[in-house]
């Protein structure tokens, strides 16, 4: 039987706003767990621009995307949040009443959470692999076209075509080449945006004729019943030819999609969750939306706005989690009780 993980607050998305929500909830004694589809915290800050400087975080004249994530992780450590990475939230069931909400949320890894409040801090949505616009590719997906490798064994003895020039493409070239019958790397240019040692290892394999590197881009797929037999390729010189293969792995990076949250019964406006600006609550009592995923008159998609939204959502969440307690507003500078929670008194 699936174990049910009970928590006060379930936070969807471990980007900067989801992380800061842990802090604001924690000050109010609300325990939180976070689910994120990425293998690490930070969301877009860590995935899209870890090294880019950000200039509009209050109190930091300049800080990188990764820098702010590292700081937030340090800042929320006293509250001991639990992270569930590489997982996407799927189904949501409303268990409670509008006055006393409770939710059951299931992830694609079959984890089940029971939470008193759900805080959606999902930014632009969940990061999912980009699917190349090749006619008929859907028919092959999951059978002979894959956007991620979960297990290496199914590739044993296969002719594997890997498309792309980034770290994912190079990593899987190197990891699958020992088990595959033949690995072919297809990329649009003879330059790579990947770790130099991976590129060197790949070039050594090509020089030893243990794998192939082809310049070009996929234009079509050949096969039957979802089983690939070849990919049609337009080469660098505009020549068109086929590469025989049993499986294809396209690695074109990630894109953001709202995903299963769209089916939760929340009002949506252009894939954003409309909220009020007092509590940042959705139309479903107990489900909040903060950060880039929400919308309201005057909304600015800034990290600093998300921080403010997290603080106000936490105030309302307190009343759901502790319906009989009175909320006392306190400052971290002067409250010994808050300082005790932060482990500094």
């Amino acid at each position, binding site marked *: 039987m699936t174990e049910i993980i009970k928590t006060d607050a379930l936070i969807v998305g471990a980007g900067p706003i989801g992380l800061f929500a842990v802090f604001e909830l924690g000050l109010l004694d609300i325990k939180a767990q976070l689910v994120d589809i990425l293998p690490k915290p930070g969301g877009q800050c860590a995935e899209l621009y870890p090294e880019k400087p950000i200039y509009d975080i209050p109190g930091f004249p300049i800080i990188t995307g990764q820098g702010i994530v590292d700081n937030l992780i340090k800042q929320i450590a006293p509250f001991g949040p639990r992270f569930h990475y590489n997982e996407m939230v799927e189904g949501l069931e409303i268990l409670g009443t509008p006055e006393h909400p409770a939710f059951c949320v299931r992830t694609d890894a079959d984890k089940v959470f029971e939470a008193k409040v759900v805080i959606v801090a999902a930014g632009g949505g969940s990061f999912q692999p*980009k699917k190349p616009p090749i006619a008929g590719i859907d028919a092959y997906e999951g059978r002979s076209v894959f956007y991620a490798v979960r297990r290496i064994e199914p590739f044993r003895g296969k002719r594997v075509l890997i498309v792309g020039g980034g770290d994912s493409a190079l990593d899987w070239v190197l990891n699958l080449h020992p088990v595959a019958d033949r690995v072919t790397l297809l990329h*649009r240019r003879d330059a790579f945006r990947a770790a130099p040692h991976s590129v060197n290892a790949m070039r050594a394999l090509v020089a030893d004729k243990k794998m192939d590197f082809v310049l070009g881009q996929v234009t079509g797929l050949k096969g039957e019943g979802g089983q690939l037999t070849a990919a049609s390729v337009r080469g660098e010189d505009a020549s068109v030819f086929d590469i025989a293969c049993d499986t294809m792995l396209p690695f*074109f990076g990630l894109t953001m999609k709202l995903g299963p949250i769209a089916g939760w019964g929340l009002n949506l406006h252009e894939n954003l969750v409309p909220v009020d600006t007092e509590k940042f609550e959705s139309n479903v009592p107990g489900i909040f939306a903060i950060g880039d995923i929400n919308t309201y008159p005057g909304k600015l998609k800034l990290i600093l706005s998300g921080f403010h939204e997290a603080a106000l959502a936490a105030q309302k969440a307190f009343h759901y989690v502790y319906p009989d307690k009175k909320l006392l507003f306190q400052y971290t500078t002067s409250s010994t009780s808050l300082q005790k929670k932060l482990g500094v008194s």
Partner: protein
Amino acid sequence: MIHVTYIDSKGTTRTVEAQEGSTVMETALRNSVPEIEAECGGACACATCHVYVAPEWSGIVGGPSQMEEDMLDFAFEVRPTSRLSCQIKVTPALDGLVVNTPAKQG
């Protein structure tokens, strides 16, 4: 007044006014031009504002920087005049610029 023309993948042409100093990506979003997503907001980090610069403009606009060329690896159907529109700054010299947008960005 500087004008930029966007031709979408179905052949529909949209000519809009562009402000000097803004980018071809920002100009598209500001004018609700379709087929430009710009998920990362212009950080040259996502390749979802991919455009094909019209051949007659390619020399004036110039080619991509090293970082942009790297990001183009994550775009689909890359061609010799492919650029990321967040990296093209609007200048008076680009008045009349024509770019084509691809059918799929992400």
